[in-house]
C-alpha cells in the first residue's frame, strides 16, 4: 500500500475541490478510511466531552430527582437553582475573587522576573548562564511535596505586619501562595522564554548596543516587546495553572475565607451529607473560566505548551 499522504494534504474545511476537476486517485483512496477516522475521532471526542456534559446536566437537576433515578436519566425538571445556591449560600464569588488576587499578581510577577532571567541567560554572555538555566528549570520539575514541609514550617515563623497579613504571619496569607506559585513556575517560564529569546535576530540588539543602550533599555524596550507572542502564550498557561492550583492554598491557608475557588470547592461537601449536584454546579463554575480562556486563547495556550517541548 502506498500511503504518501503529506500532513497538509487533507482538504481544508470549507474549501472543497472544484467539481469539474478530476480527483487524483490518491485523494480518492483514503475516503473510506476517512469515514472510519471520523467515527474513531468522533467517538473519542464524545467520550472526552461526556463527563463534562454530565456535570453540567447533573448541576441543573434537583437532588431528589437524581437520587431516585440516577444521573443518567431523563430530566423531569431543570433549573439554575444550584448555581444560585453556589453563589448565595456558598459565596463562590468571594472565592473567585481570592483566586484572582492570587493568580493575577502571580502571573505578572513570574513573567517579569522570568523574562529578565531569560534575557540575562540568553542574551548577555555572562558566566554561569547555563548553570542558572539548569537551576531554574530543574526547580520546576520537582514534586511539590518535596518542598512543602519546610515551606510550611518556614512560613509559620516569618512574621508580617498586620497590614500585609491578618494572621501576622506569612502562613495563612495570600503572599505565601503567590510567592510559592511564582517561585515554582519561574523555571518553566525561564526555560521557554530563553529558548524564544535565542531565536530573536541578533542585529537589532547589536544596533542597540552600538547606540549605547543599557541592559535595562535593551531588555524593556527591545527584547520584551519582541517576546509578546511568547509572553501571551505563557501568561495564558500560567493563569490557568495558578488558578487551578489546589495544593499550595490547601497547605498554606487555614482561614476558609481566604481560600481560592479550586480549594474552596471542597467546602461544598457537607460534613455528613454531600449534595453532589451542588458539587457539580460548583465544579462547572470553577471550570468555566479556564474553559473560556482556553476557547478564546487556544492558539496561545497550545503555543505555550509546545514552546517548551520543541526547540524554536
Amino acid at each position: 500500500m502506498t500511503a504518501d499522504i503529506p500532513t497538509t494534504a487533507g482538504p481544508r474545511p470549507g474549501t472543497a475541490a472544484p467539481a469539474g476537476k478530476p480527483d487524483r486517485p490518491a485523494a480518492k483512496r483514503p475516503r473510506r478510511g476517512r469515514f472510519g477516522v471520523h467515527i474513531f475521532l468522533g467517538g473519542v471526542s464524545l467520550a472526552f466531552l461526556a463527563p463534562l456534559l454530565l456535570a453540567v446536566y447533573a448541576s441543573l437537576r434537583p437532588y431528589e430527582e437524581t437520587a431516585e433515578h440516577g444521573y443518567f436519566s431523563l430530566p423531569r425538571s431543570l433549573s439554575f437553582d444550584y448555581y444560585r445556591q453556589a453563589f448565595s449560600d456558598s459565596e463562590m464569588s468571594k472565592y473567585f475573587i481570592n483566586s484572582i488576587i492570587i493568580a493575577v499578581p502571580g502571573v505578572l510577577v513570574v513573567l517579569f522576573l522570568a523574562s529578565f532571567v531569560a534575557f540575562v541567560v540568553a542574551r548577555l554572555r555572562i558566566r554561569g548562564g547555563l548553570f542558572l538555566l539548569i537551576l531554574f528549570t530543574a526547580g520546576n520539575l520537582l514534586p511539590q511535596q518535596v518542598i512543602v514541609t519546610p515551606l510550611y514550617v518556614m512560613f509559620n515563623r516569618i512574621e508580617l505586619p498586620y497590614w500585609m497579613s491578618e494572621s501576622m504571619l506569612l502562613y495563612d496569607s495570600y503572599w505565601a501562595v503567590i510567592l510559592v506559585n511564582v517561585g515554582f513556575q519561574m523555571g518553566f517560564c525561564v526555560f521557554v522564554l530563553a529558548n524564544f529569546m535565542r531565536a530573536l535576530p541578533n542585529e537589532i540588539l547589536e544596533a542597540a548596543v552600538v547606540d549605547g543602550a543599557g541592559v535595562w533599555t535593551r531588555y524593556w524596550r527591545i527584547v520584551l516587546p519582541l517576546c509578546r507572542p511568547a509572553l501571551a502564550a505563557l501568561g495564558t498557561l500560567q493563569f490557568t495553572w495558578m488558578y487551578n492550583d489546589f495544593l499550595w492554598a490547601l497547605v498554606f491557608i487555614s482561614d476558609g475565607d481566604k481560600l481560592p475557588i479550586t480549594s474552596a470547592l471542597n467546602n461544598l461537601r457537607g460534613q455528613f451529607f454531600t449534595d453532589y449536584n451542588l458539587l457539580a454546579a460548583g465544579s462547572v463554575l470553577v471550570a468555566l473560566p479556564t474553559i473560556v480562556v482556553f476557547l478564546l486563547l487556544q492558539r496561545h495556550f497550545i503555543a505555550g505548551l509546545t514552546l517548551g517541548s520543541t526547540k524554536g
Partner: protein
Amino acid sequence: MPHATARERRTRRRGLRRRFTARDLAVIGVLLGFAILLDLFVIWGPTVASITLSFSSWDGLSDLNWVGGDNYDTLAGGDYPPFWPAVRNNLLWIAFLGLVATPFGLLLAVVIDRGVRFSRFYQSTIYLPVVLSLAVVGFIAQLVFSRDQGALNAILGNQDNPTDWLGDRDLNIWMVLLAAGWRHTGYVMILYLAGLKAVAPELKEAAAIDGANERQTFLRVVFPTMRPVNVVVLVITIIESLRAFDIVYAINKGRNGLELLSVLVTDNIIGEASRIGFGSAIAVVLLTVSLGFIVTYLVQEMRGEERR
C-alpha cells in the same frame, strides 16, 4: 556572532567589565539577584531542608532530635502500613499513564496530523480536559462512578447489585487512573501534534520512495526523529505521576485504596500528628525517584544549549 575567533572571544571576555556600566550591573544585580534568591528560598532551600529533616523525628515544636535512618527503616520495614500501597499506586500511575494514556495520545496525534476535516474540533475537545483543575476532575469522577447515582452503573444497568467503583479498594485506583488518563491523553496529543508538524516532509517522502509502508515510516523514521518530544513526554508522564495528588484528595483525601506518596507527605504535616521528620523522609523518596528523570531531561535539553 557565531563565528567569533578565539582572539575575538578573548577580548570579549576581557571586556566584560567594560561592557556593563555601573547602572547595568545594578539592574542585573537587583533583578537577577531577586529571582535567584526567590528560587533558593522557595525551591532549593526547602529541598535541602527536606533531606536534612528526614533524618530527624521533629514534630515542628520540640527540639530537633536526630534519629539517623530510623524514618527510612520504618518506611521500608512496613511499620507504616500506607507506605507500600502508596508506592504500588504511584507505580501503577506511571505504568497506566505511560503504557495506556501516552500511546493513546500519540495515536490521536498521528490520526489528526494526517489531516482530516474538523481536526480543529477534535483537537480542542480532546484537549479540553487538560485545562480543568485536577480537583475538578476528581469531583466529576464522582458523578460518573458513584455507586447509587453514577452514570456508569446506569449505563451498565446493574442497579440491583451496583458496583461501588470508588468505594471498593481493589477497584477505585483504576477508576481514578481512567480519570487521570482522561486529562493526560490530551496533553500528550498536543505535544506530539507539534512534534509531528516539525518533522520534515522530505523524510517521509524519502522513506516512501524507498518502499517503506506507512507503519514502517512512522516507527523507523518519524518516531525516532521526534526524540526531543519523546523525552519531554516521558518526563512529563513520570513527573505528573509522582506529583499526582489533587484527584485522589478531591475524591476521598487519598484513603481506602487511593494512597499516594504525595498524600502521605501532606497527611504527615497538616494532619494532627505533625510528624515533620517522617513526612520529609517520604518526600525524599519522591525526590530520589524523580531526580533520575529530571537529570535525563536536563541532559537532553542542555545538550542543545551548549552547541549554540
